[in-house]
């Protein structure tokens, strides 16, 4: 941030509320402008103008307002929007949630500074995503195929191995056509243990040199979390559309992000929406998620995999609910499967990849992929029905056929979903699917040809 351009100074803080300070007699400031807030002690903090009303500016302070003395503190509008310096030198670096290096190395020399809010992608400029990304995970590749330029979140619960799964995907992800592949990690409100785990795993897998990490830990300022995904996505857009990389962005944990959003909303005394999250949360999340995609005439792509924790495993909670409405499908993790020792514990029935059809079939994965996937879904759904039935009528009340479906469901979970650390090719996945389907009768599945 270019702070040396300071022209104006205000010592007019009238009130402080949560992370916000209200500054009076402000002229010429603009919405979204960055400020520095200098405390009486000389400590420098970063702020952003959220609202202007007459000569009053509402400034959110990233590092919080604790210790600010309204008499002594000074506010300097910088005349700049929130921007991040970008360059290929960011590879291998670890930054905090606001883009400041925390790996002990000096700051990079950026090629250019970009507004972290970006601009909305023109729907007419978007290229239809149609490239298959092989994650090596059967439940994803076979049943809910990920496509380049897609946004596919992982809905997790507290204690479920979402981060392990995300890292496995980063390790294994392959695209049919070779290209420069980059990973950007935007971590919001993760514990220091998780932060350590991410860094260590990336290092061990040798993925670090193609990775850029922005890490905001639980103990870091909450407001910083509102910037982290925007910074991560701005760097992603730069690498994808200026430098031709295929970028996979992992944002974790969106639940922490939304909580920061709620905190700001309540400090601004806004009318709260569902579960007191702000009414504009859909729009706000959309401005993040919709930055995934491909552009006509550009080589690169931004594929987004946000991870969120469903509070109390509730998929109707506003965070997963609004996310599901914006993203192109979802991968849902299940506590029941996790307890059974199945890894990855992907609960396939509520999973979906809306772009799957675009990325599969002849020349992409394999002819007949759709049919195999549909049959697996149908048979497994029926198996689950039977499993429910067993709890009521007992195994004795089942017909032979029902029993076969029950077995199918068990086998499917154990072999197809529960693949552990194996990196499966798409062919192996589909062959396994066909193999499993043999146990359910021909003609039972209407779609079978």
């Amino acid at each position, binding site marked *: 941030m270019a702070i040396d351009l300071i022209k104006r100074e205000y010592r007019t803080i009238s009130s402080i509320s949560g992370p916000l300070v209200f500054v009076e007699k402000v002229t010429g400031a*603009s919405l979204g402008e960055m400020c520095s807030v200098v405390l009486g002690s000389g400590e420098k903090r970063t702020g952003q103008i959220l*609202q202007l009303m007459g000569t009053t500016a509402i400034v959110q302070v990233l590092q919080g307002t604790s210790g600010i003395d309204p008499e002594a503190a000074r506010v300097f509008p910088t005349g700049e929007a929130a921007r991040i310096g970008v360059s290929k030198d960011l590879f291998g670096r670890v930054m905090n949630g606001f883009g400041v290096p925390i790996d002990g190395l000096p700051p990079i020399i950026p090629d250019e500074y970009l507004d972290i809010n970006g601009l909305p*992608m023109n729907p007419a400029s978007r290229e239809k995503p149609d490239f298959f990304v092989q994650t090596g995970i059967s439940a994803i590749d076979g049943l809910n195929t990920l496509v380049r330029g897609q946004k596919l979140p992982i809905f997790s619960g507290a204690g479920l191995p979402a981060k392990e799964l995300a890292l496995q995907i980063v390790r294994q992800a392959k695209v049919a056509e070779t290209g420069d592949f980059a990973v950007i990690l935007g971590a919001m409100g993760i514990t220091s243990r998780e932060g350590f785990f991410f860094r260590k795993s990336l290092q061990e897998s040798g993925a670090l040199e193609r990775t850029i990490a922005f890490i905001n830990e639980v103990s870091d300022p909450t407001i910083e979390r509102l910037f982290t995904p925007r910074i991560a996505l701005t760097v992603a857009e730069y690498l994808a559309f200026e430098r031709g990389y295929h970028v996979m962005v992992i944002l974790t944990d969106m639940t922490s992000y939304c909580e920061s959003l709620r905190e700001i909303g309540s400090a601004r005394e806004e009318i709260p929406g569902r579960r007191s999250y702000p009414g504009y949360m859909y*729009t706000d999340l959309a401005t993040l998620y919709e930055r*995934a995609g491909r552009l006509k005439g550009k080589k690169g792509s931004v594929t987004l995999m946000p991870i969120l924790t469903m509070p109390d495993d509730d998929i109707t909670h506003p965070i997963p609910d609004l996310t599901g409405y914006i993203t192109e*499908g979802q991968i849902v993790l299940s506590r029941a499967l996790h307890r059974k020792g199945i890894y990855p514990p992907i609960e396939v029935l509520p999973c979906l990849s809306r772009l799957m059809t675009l990325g599969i079939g002849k020349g992409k994965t394999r002819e007949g992929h*759709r049919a195999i996937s549909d049959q697996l879904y149908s048979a497994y759904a029926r198996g689950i029905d039977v499993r429910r039935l067993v709890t009521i009528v007992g195994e004795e009340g*089942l017909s032979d056929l029902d029993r076969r479906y029950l077995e199918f469901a068990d086998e499917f979970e154990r072999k197809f979903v529960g693949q552990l650390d194996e990196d499966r090719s798409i062919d192996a996945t589909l062959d396994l699917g066909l193999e499993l389907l043999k146990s359910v009768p021909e003609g039972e599945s209407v779609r079978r040809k």
Partner: protein
Amino acid sequence: MTEKKGKIYGVAGPTVLVKGMSGPVMNTVCLVGRQGLLGEIIRVKGDFATLQVYEDTSGISVGEEVVSYGLPLSVTLGPGLLAGIFDGIQRPLEKIRLAAGGFIPRGIKIEAIDRERLWEFAPLKKKGDPVEPGDIIGTVQETPRIVHKIMVPPGSSGTITEIKSGMVSGKEHVCMLSTGKSIGLFQEWPVRIPRPFKSKLPPTTPFITGQRVFDTLLPVAEGGTAIVPGGFGTGKTVVEQTIAKFSKSDIVVYVGCGERGNEMSEILSDFPALSDPASGLPLSQRTVIVVNTSNMPVAAREASIFTGITIAEYFRDMGYSVAMLADSISRWAEALREISSRLEEMPGEEGFPPYLATQLGIFYERSGKVRCLGADERTGSVTVISAVSPPGGDFSEPVTQASLRFAGTLWALDPDLAYRRHFPAVNWLASFSLYHSELGGWFSGNVAEDMARLRRKLFTLLQRQTELRDIIQIIGVEALQESDRLTLEVANIATESFLKQSAFSEVDAFNTYEKQYWMLKAIFAYMESAEAALRRGVYIETILENPAASSLAAMKEMANEGFSKKASELIRDIESEFAILDEK
């Protein structure tokens, strides 16, 4: 045009407070600030006017100038609309792409429709003819499929003193009236005011979607309204897109309101390549797309459905049957809520403003089959099909509930069906259509006398299926009576082979009413033959193993053409196969 100026006093999200504008007029548009962003006055209070701004307000400062020309938010209507793709305030996205590349810069101004382009105008009137509003003075062949009719705008009439013929551009007049009024290829219309017509007509013809579960079980009338609520992943967008592709309407206006960009790119790349089943010409030639994806400014999202329906009404006025598809109306309601909350209005249920239902009603009531303005008594229709995205899939929320009051047809989508990959995932028992009685005459006259009877029979069968499934949950399938097992089997066949339909299969995606009727005929012929065999004393197992069921499943993949003949053969085969089954 009087120019009024004021100064920006405050900025919060998409709203801007302006001070010192003398006599601001509600719902007129302004240019805001140095960047000249487009905004609309939505509140006037003393010396202050509040604007909703159709672009991102970042970077706006207090003290910047706001200019109003006193005009309401309007769209440009004329040749060049078809195959176009516009944002919520009718900015042409394709031209923005050519001018600015991948992203939409702030404050970009490009005319909605190219006024320089020349069109071949064929006059239908001559000098000296008297004309009234809505009269067609001539035509332009806009696309090989669609003739664009140039109409006398509402409010103008007189005697023609001059009329041109041949190539004309949107900048010049094509006709002069005795009143001195000139008529061009284009007209402007304010989006928030419904376009006038002579009278509304009762909805007596079905809007043909080609989808069995809709057309047969839950029809919507031409000029009617249908709503499609469903949680995420239940296939709302696929329903909307399927209807956009295959429905038998002349014109389709597709409004992507607050939805996904990648879905729009799919439509944009697919539609020119797909041909419409009636004419064989590319679908894009009958389609206008208005798109304000979820990441585009929220106020323009609010305007998008009005922009869309105004364009739909304009084509209706030419005498076309128009499908207006809105995906999704909930995102529009959320935009309304967001703006209302910035205005610090007293919130109603779930934070939505109390006028939500009124506004929704105004929108839905712009649908309808009408006798258009003009001396030739032509009729046109706008059928509204809107997706609703209830939070958590809970239909008790305000947008679904308010929409239900105005909708003639409900297609309720069900996550359980979607999880099983049963699409369209319409819960047939939870859905309804109020048009059955109005459409009854059309069905008996155009499909078959007994169509209504077969439909009722199917309903009864499906109702019974639900009851039997509940019973099985308790006692298991083996304990059912034999006749009930048969009923369940037939119901399952109907579910799998009739209600389930693939939008991705070339043959299955669109079914004529004739095919739908004969499919039902075949399914019930199977039921009757099987029941007869059971009564005769054939084992239920023998009946269930009969391969006739799989030939019913194969009907889906048979072409519409010649289907009735094949179905009659199939029915004969089924009857004879059951007749020779051995008794116990």
